[in-house]
């Protein structure tokens, strides 16, 4: 059995010396980053200029003093650091040793810092680091929920293009129910129902009637957009105070943890929705790979016939997981409305369902990976905002491209080939 990209045969390994092929992709990517850091940022920073970072929010207990650094030397230092890591990666590649995940992480952070130092040089505005992280997370939350929804469905073999519609439906119902009951937590219960309802339609068409899953997904997005917009214009608009003024989910501060400098506010001064997200991801990560539920679901997504022959009801499993996925996306929809105390608005998800889909793929269909991908996107977005406020020399439209470019770079340079669940998109029939 041939197996592109994997070892063909473990018996062969007994003879012959080990000589894995050299993979140049990552080292080259690092060298490019190093060159950019030095050429653009270090040489581009005005001589003698300084950059200020503020490291605490007004609500922090430890008021870390703002940090002011000389732009030139720091960017050069960061450039050298990246170059050193690139050198290390090259060496490791030649020696055919695997480098740890810390290398790309440090390269990424160094590049980001250099970018920030360069952009903030002599601008007079401090770069608010904790805020940047927090806003990055705000942006990432619906993406992460959406990506979880996508992977629960796709791991069981159903392509969920309707994440966008599920988010939107969740946002809608969360807002309306929270307003009606005057309790944000009621909205939190309603949101998953809306997402699950959309998913049920997906499952009904895709599983029961074997319609092309991508068509159903794309069309469901249109359907939900149409329905929610229609209800918005005809019903919500005129009765906004009784139907569409949702109360806000309170921010729950975890006592000590939220005081951790810099990352504390991002992780531990959040609404319950964010904590639910963390729990969801952790539970999914474990359950997907370690539990009976996860094993069966992955079997159904990889080789449904094999699952069927051991007595697993393929379509029933798919139904359940598709609905679960929809519910998770619906919950993510709540982050658009009740988590921010915002009324529902037409098309307010603005395409984030599709970015969630990309995050899921970038994260290789794993909860942890998808979270990282969502955070990458969120942070790139937050970086964009921060830079634009600090006053970057780059035109707004190019700054806005930042998250998209970062994602392309990540998928081409670092992730490479990804493998989708083998049976996804294929209706199961005996």
């Amino acid at each position: 059995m041939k197996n592109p990209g994997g070892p063909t045969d473990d018996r062969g390994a007994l003879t012959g010396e080990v000589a894995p092929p050299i993979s140049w992709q990552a080292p080259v990517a690092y060298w490019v980053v190093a060159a950019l850091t030095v050429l653009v940022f270090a040489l581009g920073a005005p001589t003698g200029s300084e950059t200020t970072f503020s490291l605490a929010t007004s609500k922090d207990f430890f008021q870390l003093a703002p940090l002011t650094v000389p732009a030139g030397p720091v960017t050069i230092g960061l450039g050298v650091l990246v170059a050193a890591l690139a050198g290390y990666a090259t060496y490791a590649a030649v020696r055919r040793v695997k480098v740890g995940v810390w290398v790309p992480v440090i390269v990424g952070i160094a590049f980001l810092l250099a970018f920030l130092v360069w952009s903030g040089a002599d601008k007079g505005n401090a770069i608010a680091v904790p805020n940047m992280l927090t806003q990055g997370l705000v942006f990432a939350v619906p993406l992460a929920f959406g990506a979880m929804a996508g992977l629960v469905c796709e791991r069981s073999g159903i392509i969920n293009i309707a994440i966008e519609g599920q988010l939107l439906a969740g946002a809608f119902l969360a807002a309306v129910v929270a307003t009606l009951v005057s309790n944000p937590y009621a909205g939190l219960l309603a949101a998953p129902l809306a997402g699950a309802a959309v998913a049920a339609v997906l499952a009904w068409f895709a599983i029961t009637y074997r319609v092309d899953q991508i068509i159903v997904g794309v069309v469901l997005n249109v359907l939900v957009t149409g329905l929610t917009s229609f209800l918005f214009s005809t019903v919500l608009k005129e009765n906004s105070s009784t139907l569409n003024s949702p109360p806000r989910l309170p921010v729950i501060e975890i006592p000590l943890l939220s005081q951790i400098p810099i990352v504390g506010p991002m992780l531990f001064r959040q609404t319950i929705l964010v904590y639910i997200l963390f729990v969801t991801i952790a539970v999914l990560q474990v359950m997907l790979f370690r539990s009976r539920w996860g094993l069966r679901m992955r079997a159904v997504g990889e080789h449904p016939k094999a699952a069927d022959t051991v007595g697993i009801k393929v379509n029933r499993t798919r139904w359940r997981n598709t609905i679960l996925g929809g519910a998770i996306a619906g919950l993510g929809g709540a982050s658009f409305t009740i988590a921010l105390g915002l009324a529902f608005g037409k098309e307010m998800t603005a395409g984030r369902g599709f970015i969630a889909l990309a995050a899921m793929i970038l994260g290789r269909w794993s909860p942890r990976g998808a979270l990282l991908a969502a955070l990458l996107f969120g942070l790139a977005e937050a970086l964009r905002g921060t830079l634009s406020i600090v006053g970057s020399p780059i035109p707004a439209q190019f700054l806005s491209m930042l998250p998209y470019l970062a994602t392309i770079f990540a998928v081409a340079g670092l992730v490479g080939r990804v493998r989708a669940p083998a049976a996804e998109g294929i209706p199961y029939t005996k």
Partner: protein
Amino acid sequence: ACGDAPEEATGSATSTTAAADFTGCMVSDAGGFDDGSFNESSYAGLERAVEELGIKKAEAESTDAGQYNGNLDSMMQNDCDLIITVGFNLADATAAAAEGNPDQKFALIDSTVDPARENVKPILFNTHEAAYLAGYLAAGITETGTVATYGGFPIPSVTIFMDGFVDGVAKYNEDHGTDVKALGWNKETQDGEFTDTFDDKGQGVISTNNFIAAGADVILPVAGPVGEGSLSAASQNDGVKVIWVDADGYDMYPEYQDIIPTSVLKGMEQAVFDVLYASTGTAFNSDAYVGTLANEGIGLAEVRDESVPEDLLEEIDTLKQQIVDGELVVESPSSISVD
């Protein structure tokens, strides 16, 4: 679904004036009629005319730019007396339709047609003048010495607010020797902070939080419903205020009244109503309607915030008078001059 049936209507209650035969029509741009912004305000003008003048109406909502021609076309099929097109995006489509149908009357909001046509009435607003006053007010009430503005997309009907706003802040600094910073817009390079959406309110929250983290405490969002994100974010941070745009935010958002010191009004509803009213008679002409501070087509909403100092309000009144009198000229590359 149960209840008593109403009596059969015996005579119709329609008005017997000439207006009854008049059909006012409107085509929105891609934002649609409930964009919480200028399409919506314009549509309110049409609805008011239906109610108060008894005219008939027809409308076509566009969902994307490719529909403008088609929508105008279907209006033409519909025997409209006046077709109001909303937004500069419809300018070319309106011009083309006007050329092909010289007997059909049009009114075009936020843009002129080039060349001007007998049957097209531009409806324009010197919004930057009102935004200028808002900028001045913002600079006067900031505690942190930093104010901010952001837009939905970099288009003139948005950036005209931002131009006026930062100029108003500069004027305040000039008059008072202060150094209030205005974040989010650089008038020289015409570059600044945009959410790239009029829909995703979460982006408004994020942008506003970024501004607050950078020290701003008065925010002017020019992004339709996305501005609600600013209200939400500001309400979570003590002392942060939001200046609303287009309509009076104080009336629209009762729950946020204490953080909305004022709004930059762009009187589209009134303008549309006035133009329709004039057209039901014989008073249609192709002269541009220009909303200014002088004719109150634009303006600053009543300041109900007790904390705004009296003398600041007086200064603003003076400035307003100077602008009305032409002593002070506020400029924006996005304003449209009609001569």
